[in-house]
């Protein structure tokens, strides 16, 4: 009996050790696969930066040279001279700032109207808001262009900025989801104290919605920064080009030095990258809340 028990105890220890070993092995396998996939995903960025720092003769070689002999930081200055990216930068920042401002003001007001005030027909109208998300942009693209052309806005930033002041279904949805979660007792208390609806939005709702507001700010900034079709349709004067449009015209030139093109791409990506590293959790949460990629 005793020996039996001792044996089974020993057995259990062996089994336990085996299980631990198997788990450790599992973990190693998982990390290897993750590291491999992760490397594949960052590799294009790494190669972009490495190429941007190479001398021309280090680019077209076999076998490829991975690390440049001496990093050519001057390539960046060269790229900025080759095409006026400084100008494009200012243009993009200008558009993004006004778009973000418009997106924040219009969509907080609209989302407030859809979440914190009970009015007849509200939910029916909200379904229309959601339905507009299903509409392919191509259907409205041409008439909207014609409207802006009649207004004399084609060739200016107005068509890229003004729509942001009229709300966007995606951000209305995101903010409404957030506002709905704030206890109604808070607004009721403020209302009893004689606070107006705008006052409630300003002093009760907005201070409690910082994460959602940050998410909206980031998404609308990045979406505007990355936008290509809008600037492509509406901007013709090279002076007014955004970063993406400028980069595209850089690409389409007959002969563009690859290291300078990669330097320019790095310059175009940099602000997005900095914002992402600084605030990545807001992106992930934004997508998880709405289930939409926002693209």
């Amino acid at each position, binding site marked *: 009996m005793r020996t039996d028990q001792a044996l089974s105890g020993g057995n259990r220890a062996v089994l336990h050790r085996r299980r631990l070993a198997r788990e450790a092995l599992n973990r190693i396998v998982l990390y290897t696969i993750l590291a491999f996939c992760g490397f594949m995903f960052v590799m294009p960025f790494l190669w972009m930066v490495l190429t941007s720092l190479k001398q021309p003769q280090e680019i077209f070689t076999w076998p490829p040279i991975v690390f440049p002999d001496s990093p050519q930081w001057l390539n960046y200055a060269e790229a900025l001279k080759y095409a006026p990216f400084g100008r494009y930068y200012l243009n993009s920042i200008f558009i993004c700032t006004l778009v973000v401002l418009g997106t924040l003001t219009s969509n907080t007001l609209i989302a407030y109207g859809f979440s914190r005030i009970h009015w007849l027909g509200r939910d029916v109208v909200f379904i229309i808001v959601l339905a507009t998300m299903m509409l392919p942009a191509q259907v409205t693209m041409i008439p909207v262009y014609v409207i802006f052309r009649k207004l004399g806005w084609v060739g200016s930033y107005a068509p890229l900025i003004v*729509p942001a002041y009229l709300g966007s279904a995606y951000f209305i949805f995101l903010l409404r989801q957030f506002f709905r979660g704030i206890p109604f007792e808070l607004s009721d208390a403020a209302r009893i104290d004689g606070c107006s609806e705008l006052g409630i939005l300003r002093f009760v709702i907005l201070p409690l919605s910082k994460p959602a507001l940050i998410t909206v700010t980031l998404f609308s900034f990045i979406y505007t920064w990355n936008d290509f079709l809008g600037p492509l349709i509406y901007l013709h004067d090279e002076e007014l080009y955004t970063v993406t449009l400028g980069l595209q015209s850089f690409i389409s030139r007959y002969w563009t030095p690859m290291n300078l093109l990669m330097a320019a791409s790095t310059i175009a990506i940099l602000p997005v990258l900095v914002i992402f590293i600084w605030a990545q959790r807001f992106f992930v949460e934004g997508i*998880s809340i709405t289930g939409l990629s926002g693209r």
Partner: protein
Amino acid sequence: MYKEAHELNFKFRRLTRQERRNLRLGLAFISPWIIGFLILTLYPIAISLFYSFNNFGLLSPPTWVGTQNYVELFTRDDKFFTSLYNTVFFFSLAMPASVVAAFFLALLLNNKLHGVTFFRSVFFLPTIVPTVASAAVWMWLLNPQWGLINAFLRLIGVHGPPWLSSPEWAKPSLVLVAIWTIGSEVIIYLAALQEIPRDYYEAALVDGATLWHRTRFITLPLITPVILFHLINGTIWAFQYFTEAFVMTGGGPANATLFYALYLYRNAFTNLKMGYASAQAWILFFVVMVATLIIMRSSKGWVYYED
């Protein structure tokens, strides 16, 4: 009839002062949206349908031509069929690949490991950089002669294809780029995976189910609603696919990457055939709607809903 109208009237009269005040307030708050909806959505929808039955070159007012644009698209325009074919082909190549890739990466991230949030960010990163910039990078990576990908293939003794510059490989090249930008879908799949109760797996383990069985018979069925969502989004995405093709191939070589939205854009803004392009837009809308309905209808057969 009279009675109903009367009742309706009665209902209206029954709006209390509070309710009327709320209605006014609510409409005031959403008024920016109402203006935007009327000017930038509703009116454009109506007038776009009108344009599609017109010859409209932007510089002169539209002239009515009846169904001519549609007839021409379906009977005489080879490029239209090329663009439709390219888009459907691209979709049927990219969609399964995206589902498998997103599901696989989400499964990887769903393990309790240190640093998974780091990898989640890594997978997500390509989706938020400007498409034009990533297009530039991929054009360089896929360069037939000096690109990194063919250099790697040469290293393992494979003669790499000419990628973007060959009609056969141009679409697969773009699929590769599409898989690289799968990050936001990965996050949506991951969110769904994290909702699955752990007891299901524990119960299956007791019954001796292997990893494959658990994935195939527990995870996969429970993730089908997300796949349905991904499929519907993917249809719309494929028909709006534009920037990558515009920048990387410009529709070439030999129209191999002339996708639907690209051909529409060209007709509208390069050829200034706005009426013709509007007809294309309505066909796009119709195709996407029908595809969505078919996918929804079919979903009863393969999407698993709990309870």
